[in-house]
Every structure is written in structure tokens, then in C-alpha cells.
């Protein structure tokens, strides 16, 4: 069944189309701040290359984060409206799935959380924001870390004996991977992993 997946939670905006377990086409753009302008063009390009129309899709999947709050919302708002306009079901998949799919078992997903932190998915731990130094200390040596956060803080991680692959392609979010993982997807709820910076001045 043809699945369209999109993800704009990280600095890479991407869209892919898969069918019966095979990724047919993937379009991506590494351009911070350009997701809103770019994402539908990526969708259109991926559909064109896969020789499919929106009407032929059976599912629309979206990466729900973590990552940039604005990027998460651009992806979910786009996917939800596409699904509503075409009467298709929608599935949310964590962006970690787009980072970790096809990587070595036991790999840790590390997404840049800005402000000197990273969002982390590690086996046996709850997803949350970490400081790179604390994460480096908590993980066993030789653990493989992947994702844009792993690349950004690679010196910290390598100094602690963690493995950060050199190949940049192993650190990007793959919309194709999200499309393949989407069948197990849930409601497209944002995965912010951090509260807004707001201080209540009046009790609720």
C-alpha cells in the first residue's frame, strides 16, 4: 500500500513515498528555516518520481519530532491538512524512527535540541533532553550514536569513547524510513519533550 511520509522536525525537510516495503522516492532539502516553503514541493517531487498521485495513497505519515518546535508543527499541520483534504488516514511516527531505522541494534538516536542540549532515544531509557556531556557519561563506551545532535557534538561523544559514524548520510532523518515504519504509527501527536518557556503569573 502506497504511503507518503514527511518530516520537518530537524534541519532536513524530507518527503518519501513507499509501497509494499520499498521506498520508491525520497526528496530532501537541508535548509534551516525553509521547511514551510519547501515541504509541499518535496511531497510533489516524491509523488512525481514514484509515479503516484495523492489520490492513490493509502496512508499519510508524519514525523512528530522531537526537534524544532516550529518544524514539528509545520510537518504535522501539513500532513493533517493533506490527509483531511484527500480523506486519507494519518499516522504519527517519532522522528527517532527516521533516524534509527536500519542502524545497528543498540544505536542511540541523538537529535539537536538547541540551547546546548540533545533529544535522546536510548534503549531502556525514556526519551528526553540531555546535555551532551551528561549523555556521553551515561552511555557505555563503543555505543553508536546517530542523528544531527550526534554529529554536532561528535567531539564530546568521541572523547567519551562513543562511536559517531563519519558518514553524514547516517545522521539524517530518512522520510523513507518513516514511511516504512508508519504502519505501526499512532495519532499524530507532537513529541515536544520540552515545555514552553512561560511562567504563570496567575494561578490556573
Amino acid at each position, binding site marked *: 500500500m502506497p504511503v507518503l511520509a514527511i518530516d520537518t522536525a530537524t534541519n532536513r525537510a524530507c518527503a518519501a513515498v513507499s509501497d509494499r516495503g520499498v521506498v520508491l522516492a525520497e526528496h530532501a532539502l537541508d535548509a534551516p528555516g525553509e521547511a*514551510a*516553503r519547501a*515541504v*509541499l*514541493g518535496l*511531497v*510533489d517531487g516524491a509523488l512525481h518520481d514514484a509515479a503516484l498521485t*495523492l489520490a492513490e495513497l493509502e496512508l499519510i505519515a508524519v514525523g512528530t519530532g522531537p526537534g524544532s*518546535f*516550529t518544524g514539528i*508543527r*509545520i510537518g*504535522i*499541520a*501539513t*500532513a*493533517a*491538512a*493533506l*490527509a*483531511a*483534504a*484527500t480523506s486519507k488516514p494519518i499516522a504519527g511516527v517519532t522522528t527517532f524512527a527516521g533516524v534509527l531505522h536500519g542502524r545497528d541494534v543498540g544505536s542511540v538516536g541523538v537529535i539537536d535540541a538547541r540551547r546546548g542540549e540533545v533529544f535522546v532515544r536510548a534503549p531502556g531509557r525514556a526519551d528526553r533532553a540531555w546535555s551532551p556531556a551528561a549523555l556521553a557519561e551515561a552511555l557505555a563506551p563503543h555505543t553508536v550514536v546517530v542523528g544531527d545532535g550526534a554529529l554536532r557534538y561528535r567531539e564530546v561523544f568521541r572523547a567519551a569513547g562513543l562511536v559517531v559514524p563519519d558518514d553524514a548520510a547516517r545522521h539524517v532523518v530518512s522520510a523513507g524510513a518513516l514511511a516504512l515504519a508508519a504502519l505501526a504509527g499512532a495519532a499524530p501527536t*507532537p513529541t*515536544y519533550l520540552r515545555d*514552553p*518557556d*512561560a*511562567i*504563570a*503569573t*496567575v*494561578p*490556573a
Partner: protein
Amino acid sequence: MILAIETSCDETCAAVVDGTAVLANVVASQALLHRRFGGVVPEVASRRHLELVGPVVQAALADAGVTLAEVTAVAVTVGPGLIGALLVGVSAAKAYAYGAGKPLIAVDHLHGHVASLFLGPDAIEPPFLCLLASGGHTLLLDVSDHRTFHVLGRSLDDAAGEAFDKGARLLGLGYPGGVAIEALARNGRATRATFTIPMAGRDGLDLSFSGVKTALATRLAARPPASDDDRADVAAGYQEAIVESLVSRLERALKMTGHQRVGVVGGVAANGRLRARLAALAERSGITVRVAPLAYCGDNAAMIGSAARFLEPQPFPALLAIDAYPRATLKVKSL
């Protein structure tokens, strides 16, 4: 028939507009959500927009009794406003348009406020003078046609609606402040607590509201209200100073431009005292004064659909590249 979406600040809005007729106008206000922060928190607003935009669009289509397939175009506010909030509406609108094979119309929020005067049976036609007073902007505009307006004067600091919000906070009232101050002022007498009218007698058409806010803070610190009556008098005096400033600058703009028609729009246009003063102005001067209907004063999508009628629809693939912008780019006209 246009489906319009507006998410520039803290109201999630969708409307269906057919010519000057509003078939549906849904506004999901976040005021209660932001009350405990004493104002709009952009990240909180953006998160709420994402939850609400789909249901609000569905509600507007249902209220109008139409399907997405039946509308001719989708319109959306692209700016100015809170960028994270705008991007929710823009992303959704682009995907509705692309998904349904409709063109998209990118609308400026301020043009939308002006276009609230083109709705309904009492619509006024350009050219006219327009006072736009909201939480984000206070502008005197020369509206030359349905899609063209120039700034004649503007607030040099706080917007009028911002002055109400900040004043309400100083008075210990809730958010949004305009409604709270107006309610309290009803029990007070402005003459017992007078404030200097901002920009009174000054040349030009610019406005300013930070001074009167500071005067309120100073007064409350020096002489805390001794009673509820006292507090009501202060609220009434503060409201009067803001309203008097708006009306006197508007009258000055009328004299300078020679316009015979005036439109008043934006959230502050819902203020009862301002509406009464404008009615008196119309009576006294014979000038046509049209104040936006209450439903179209605060942010709403009907006004966005109204403005969209006068703009170029962007078909596929041009619509794919539409983006949001946070700041207004205003054209200024010197008299």
C-alpha cells in the same frame, strides 16, 4: 466561495465567505489559556493552534454546509504576526489547497482588518479613512481601493490594545485587558481621575500610548485606589484618555485628508466607549462612520476571506512556495 484561515496571534480562526456574505465564521479563542500568563505566550499559542486548526476548519465547512471540494480557493493570513503561530495556519492552508487542487490566496493580516468593512449589507466602499486599532497595531490608513492602503499615522510605541492590556495588568484585572477595563470603567467617572491625552495638540498623525501607561503606573503607586469606586474611576479615566486620543487623531486626519467616510476596525473597535464617541462624531459632523461589526473586530477569518476577494489566487505550483512573514511592510503616505 473562499475558505479562509487565520492563526496570526492567539485566535484559531476559519471562515467560509461568498462575496460579501459570511457563511461561517469560527473563532476558537485562546484567551483563557493565556490568562494565567498575563498575555500571549507565543509557544503556548502555536501549540494550541496546531491542536485546533483542523477542527476549526471542519467546523467552518460544516457551519457553511459546504465541502472543501466546493470552495473555489483557500485563503490564509501570511503575516504580520507571531511567526510560529502563522506557520501553523500557512502550512495547513497550503496543504488543504494542494490536497484539494485549489488555488491559495496569501492575505496580509492588516489588509484583512481593513476588509472587515467590506462584509455584510453595510459595507463601505473606498476611498475612505481607516482607524485600525488592535493589540498589535494602531494605524491611521488612507484606503484608496479594496486592496491598497497607505499609512498616514501610527503609534510610535505601544498599540492601543496593548495599552489596555498593560493597564489592566496594573489595575490587577485579567487578560484580555480591553474588556476588563471597559467593564470596570462602567462603574466609574472619568472626570474624577483624569490623564493627559496622548499626543494632544501635536502636529502630524502619529499616536503614542506608552506615556499614559506610565502615568497610570505612577498614579497607582503614589495613590493606590482606596475603594472599588476609586479603582473604577481610574479605569474610566485611563480608558477615556486612550479613546480621546484615538478620536482626536482621527478627527485631525479627517481634516487633513478631506475624507468623508471613516472605517474603524480591530479589536479596540469593540470598545463601547469608543463606539459611542464615534457615533457622536458621525452625528455632529455628518461624516459617514462605519465601525466593524463586533464579530469582525477581533481577529477572525471572515475578514481574511473578504480581503482575499481582491487578491490574485496562486495556482499550483506557485502556491507551493508561499511562506509566512512576521513583520508588516507598510507603505507610508505623507500629507
